[in-house]
């Protein structure tokens, strides 16, 4: 098997010998490189395990965590050879820049970006394998209001498109659940270091819980400084904190009372299939996996499986992704007609004894829709 994998990896560098070309275009450098690294690993793992003995050429293009870098990288990736699809960025801002290019080349993009509007703009080439933020934010809000029974909420986000999009959705969802946050701040720049001014305002507001939607770096700083500030209130984060590289920054005790929404929690190994996948990921990359890696793995593997069953062209793949149901490692994927294939979300919490979280809530289907 090792020999086989090596042969496949070698084949990836020889375009003429490959059966298909599926470039990876992701933020490998820049402030979203942690998330980008996870999704790249997931995509690479799927491509290395392509079913039916397929040999796929999969060069990696770095977007640099910028919209212009993303557009340039995707254009370069798609113009050099005839791609059947591309595995692309988790970063919503970059996705917005990539969408016209996908439409121009008529190539499906396989993404895990949560930004709601990317599948709401009528572009038929966008396929998302993590829940739309519009859905997963419902799980975030419902857990705080219905399970934790909190009403005095401090709602915080960073200034990225991801942060701003999630902030607006959480505002809307809390409203539908009959509560209005007692404190709101969506002005946290990703390079902010000192969070004490923010925490001072949270304390002054009388909030009894923090709902935080942010990329990894400010989120870990807010969570860490909250724990050392003596402000003893729970915090429910978005999924970035579930990444093992983020939890590694904390002592287990510092994570007590910290929760997060996540599309899946492979590091918790909740099912035999996820355990087998997580163990293989750990062996391959010497890293604990996260939900981003698993979502991207399932997305790419769905495309590869369809290709192994006879799909030959980008247009055929687009049609098949829109129509077919696929049982992935994390969940069952089925498009809602707009390119959203993932409709499950977990809530995980840490108990202060380990960096591995426990799943405390699961939301799926209609539970992720608030009227």
């Amino acid at each position, binding site marked *: 098997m090792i020999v086989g994998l090596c042969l496949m990896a070698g084949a990836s560098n020889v375009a003429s010998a490959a059966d298909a070309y599926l470039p990876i275009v992701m933020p490998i450098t820049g402030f979203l*490189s942690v998330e980008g690294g996870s999704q790249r690993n997931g995509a690479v793992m799927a491509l290395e395990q392509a079913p039916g003995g397929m040999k796929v050429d999969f060069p990696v293009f770095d977007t640099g965590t910028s919209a212009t870098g993303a557009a340039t990288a995707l254009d370069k990736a798609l113009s050099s050879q005839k791609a059947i699809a591309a595995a692309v960025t988790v970063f919503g801002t970059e996705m917005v820049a990539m969408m016209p290019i996908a439409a121009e080349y008529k190539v499906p993009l396989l993404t895990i970006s949560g930004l709601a509007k990317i599948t709401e703009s009528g572009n038929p080439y966008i396929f998302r394998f993590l829940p739309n933020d519009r859905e997963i934010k419902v799980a975030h809000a419902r857990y705080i209001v219905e399970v934790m029974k909190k009403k005095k909420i401090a709602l915080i986000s960073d200034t990225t498109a991801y942060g701003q999009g999630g902030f607006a959705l959480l505002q809307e969802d809390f409203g539908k659940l009959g509560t209005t946050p007692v404190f709101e701040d969506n002005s946290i720049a990703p*390079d902010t270091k*000192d969070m004490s001014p923010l925490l001072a305002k949270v304390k002054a507001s009388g909030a009894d819980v923090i709902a935080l939607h942010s990329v990894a770096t400010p989120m870990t700083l807010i969570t860490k400084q909250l724990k050392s500030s003596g402000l003893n209130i729970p915090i429910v984060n978005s999924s970035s904190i579930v990444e093992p590289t983020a939890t590694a920054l904390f002592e287990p005790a510092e994570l007590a009372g910290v929760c997060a929404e996540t599309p899946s929690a492979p590091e918790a190994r909740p099912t035999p299939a996820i355990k087998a996948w997580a163990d293989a990921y750990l062996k391959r990359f010497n890293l604990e996996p996260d939900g981003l890696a698993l979502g991207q793995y399932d997305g790419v593997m769905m495309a590869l499986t369809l290709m192994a069953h006879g799909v030959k062209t980008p247009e055929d793949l687009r049609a098949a992704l829109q129509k077919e149901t696929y049982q992935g490692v994390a969940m069952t994927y089925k498009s809602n007609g707009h390119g959203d294939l993932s409709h499950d979300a977990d809530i995980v919490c840490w108990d202060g004894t380990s960096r591995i979280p426990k799943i405390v809530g699961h939301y799926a289907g209609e539970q992720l829709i608030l009227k």
Partner: protein
Amino acid sequence: MTFVQLAVNGVALGAAYALVALGFVFIVNATSAVNFAHGDLVMAGGYVAVGLGSLATLPMILMLPLVAAIMFVVGIAVALVAYFPLIDRPPATVFISTLLCGIVLQNLFLVLFGPQARAAPPLIKSGTVHLGAIEISVQALGTLAVAAALIGLQYLIFARTQIGRRLRATAQDRQMAQAIGIRASAVIACTFGAGTALAGVAGALLANQFFVYPTGGIPLSVYAYMAVVVGGWGSIAGAVLGAMLISIFQVVVSAYVSYAVATGLLYFVLLLVFFFRPQGIFGELVQRRV
């Protein structure tokens, strides 16, 4: 949390920024050139601290001298690569070469350590202490103490020792210093080393609470530059005061208004300094370098 608490937080962060600015101004004084790799050298110090922390479970306070020594050598290496080959070129050339050096360092960090943030061990231990109604982390208190000790030490060296006099002479006029027998190149190399050692110590102090990651040095270079402009170009006391003022300004305005307003106002104030007091608070008369 009161205004006093916020000011204490600002001073604690400002102490680390002061070390960054101090190292920055050392190099400015010795070479008349801005070192825009300085923030990345702060990150390098943070990575050294993370590495040492993984090798030995000792408090960081015991490893700081080793961090400083390693970074001293790194500083001399940076001088050999980015400064000495360009010593007779205009200051802008050195500015560009240090900028490029910083980008090389960022990518080196990425390759060696990956994109994820890392945390160094605490200076002494984790936790907070209460001083009346004021709460401050042990790490912040330790940072204040280390910064105060190093700032005092550099003052003694500059004001009271022969080495300090040679450093100041070389900073004022390299050719004249050489004419009177000072080995200016060795002095400049040592200054690069000392400035980088201070940056490394600052990185080790910041890397516990604020983490270290490949691109984390970029804003620190900007803060150091701003601190030196506000405090007075070439003034060591000014660099320390400038760093403190910037930190307190950011913390207090962020708390009472917002982060966005604090950042915008900070840069606007810098613009006003350029217009109305380009020599800064304790600035020298050589304003062209600003």
